[in-house]
């Protein structure tokens, strides 16, 4: 019975895609038989390799001419904007890190990481995923505006991808970035990365993932690496999962570098649809003993407007972000009563709504899923947000009643960025 229902539902969903949605195939390389003959056993003729060398040299010359020199994993900008730090608006960090395509139409799902000037949206440096990693899939930033972390995914020929992490150090004087691996921190193949966050002092990297450990294993793991010492600490739970997202960071730190906020989605084993009252933004004091993720943390703000779990504010908040002072949780939110939305601040002590920011009608075409708080000032007074009401698909700074749009680079997938 359930199998028939499932089969019918899947075919109904599949039929939403008409045959006309199949685009023409554009293969990345079409050999010209006259100059690049195949030798019959599937290997390209050496002649083609001889041709590739001068082509590559010419391409690198063009790259330098465009202002970028590639030096052993470092791409350095030769030109670029005037001192970005002098242009940073409204107290927002002058630089941010974002996923960045390499411009190839055949690399739609392969991203490097770019460092961008907040005020201008100009990329000032970039790095590629190192080694065998296929692509970066997410970014996080420390408070010093100089240190970032990117998650890199490796795809073996068969099987499920693993995720590793790279530390990116940016030098604004030379406008260069260097990348180094953090081999101790890793999400095993087959597990689902939920999110990660670099601590404000750039010394602790928290990673949350959902392992595939079978029926009796944990359903959520939070692992924190202290970069300077290599020490690792792990918390687990089998009573839910860290809600994964890139739009809204699912993990965030207070500037004591010890309190980690995570968006928790509580459930009972074998019952993925059931909510339990542990759901919401939870605060983990990493100085305390214990390894049970739920028992060692406390519920600060309820999220998710669901039956038997009503939020007293009447709003429907998205993932929450802890401010650096540890007192406020900021989240995109909307009201199911009148369809208005924007950003809401909740007390991390009482869980109550403090105030709304940038509130308005999202607009008929706006995707509420893209509306997110990406960065907050220490007290939450200034926010960097994506898709605020009235400005879908744009990044903006909100401070009180002021809203200032920021330029968004075309090569960065919206809005995978961290300040």
């Amino acid at each position, binding site marked *: 019975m*359930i199998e028939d*229902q*499932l*089969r019918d*539902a*899947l075919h*109904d*969903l*599949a*039929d*939403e*895609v008409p*045959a006309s*949605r*199949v*685009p023409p*195939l554009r*293969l*990345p*390389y079409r050999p010209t*038989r006259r100059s690049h003959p195949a030798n*019959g*056993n*599937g*290997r390209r003729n050496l002649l083609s390799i001889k041709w590739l060398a001068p082509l590559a040299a010419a391409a690198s010359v063009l790259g330098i001419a465009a202002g970028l020199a590639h030096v052993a994993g470092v791409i350095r900008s030769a030109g670029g904007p005037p001192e970005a730090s002098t242009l940073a608006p409204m107290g927002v960090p002058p630089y941010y890190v974002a996923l960045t395509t390499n411009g190839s139409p*055949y690399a*739609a*799902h392969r991203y490097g990481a770019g460092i961008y000037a907040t005020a201008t949206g100009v990329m000032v440096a970039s790095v590629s995923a190192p080694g065998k990693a296929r692509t970066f*899939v997410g970014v996080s930033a420390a408070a010093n505006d100089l240190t970032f972390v990117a998650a890199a995914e490796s795809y073996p*020929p*068969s*099987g*499920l*991808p693993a995720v590793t992490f790279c530390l990116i150090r940016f030098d604004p004087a030379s406008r260069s970035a260097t990348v180094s691996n953090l081999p101790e921190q890793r999400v095993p193949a*087959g597990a*689902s990365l939920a999110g990660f966050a670099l601590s404000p002092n750039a010394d602790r990297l928290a990673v949350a993932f959902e392992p*595939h450990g079978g*029926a009796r294993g944990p359903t959520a793991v939070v692992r924190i690496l202290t970069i300077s010492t290599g020490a690792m600490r792990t918390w687990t739970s089998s009573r839910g999962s860290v*809600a*994964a*997202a*890139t*739009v809204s960071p*699912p993990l965030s730190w207070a500037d004591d570098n010890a309190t980690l906020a995570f968006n928790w*989605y509580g459930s009972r084993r*074998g*019952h*993925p*649809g*059931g*909510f339990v009252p542990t759901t919401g933004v939870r605060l983990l004091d990493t100085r305390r003993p214990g390894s049970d993720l739920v028992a060692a943390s406390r519920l600060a703000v309820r999220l*998710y*407007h669901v*039956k038997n779990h009503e939020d007293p504010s009447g709003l429907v908040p*998205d993932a929450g972000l802890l401010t650096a002072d540890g007192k406020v949780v900021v989240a995109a939110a909307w009201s*199911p009563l009148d369809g208005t939305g924007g950003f809401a601040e909740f007390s991390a002590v009482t869980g109550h709504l403090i105030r709304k920011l940038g509130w308005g009608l999202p607009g008929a075409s706006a995707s*509420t*899923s*893209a509306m997110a708080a990406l960065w907050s000032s220490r007290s939450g007074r200034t926010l960097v947000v994506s898709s605020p009401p009235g400005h879908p698909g744009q990044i903006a700074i909100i401070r009180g009643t002021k809203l200032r749009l920021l330029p968004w680079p075309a090569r960065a*997938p919206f809005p995978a960025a961290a300040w």
Partner: protein
Amino acid sequence: MDSGLAATATRAPAPLVVLGAAKEAAVTVLYHEHALSLIRLAHIMLGGRAGAEDIVHDAFCGLYRRWDHLADPNKALGYVRSSVLNGCRTALRRGRLADRVRSYQPAAASAEAAVLSGEERREVVRALRRLPERQREVLVLGYYLDLSDEQIADDLGIGASTVRSTRHRALAALERALKDARAGDTQ
């Protein structure tokens, strides 16, 4: 449902014997035969979000680049299917929370106008999206593409017995979630 297209989705791949430069033609033929069913697979895995076509196109470009390294060209379809699933996982990691949050919103007013069976199917899809990644993939490959346990095991890089136990757990979880959702609706 378009039964002809569904047949394309579930048909066993024709044996492929490809030499040298013919790989371009082989990949193109494979694309014409299976692109639609794979886009539909990606559409299901992404929960209706945009990007299914890009993921499938990217998977075929990857197949083309790796063709010379394939141990067995007859497994090309399995390779590209795995690539599509990988692409979907990456896309979902970038936006999973939004889906989860949306999936827990109260039923829209338009649901009143929907026929009951349609609403039931949407409930099934919503419950499916809440399952862990591996369980969801096993169910979709089994009940949409009608793959055998061995084919699913090959695609996911796991054992056939793991496929069976995963499906058993997933169906039980799905059934429970549906029962709870319906009980909630009648409260």
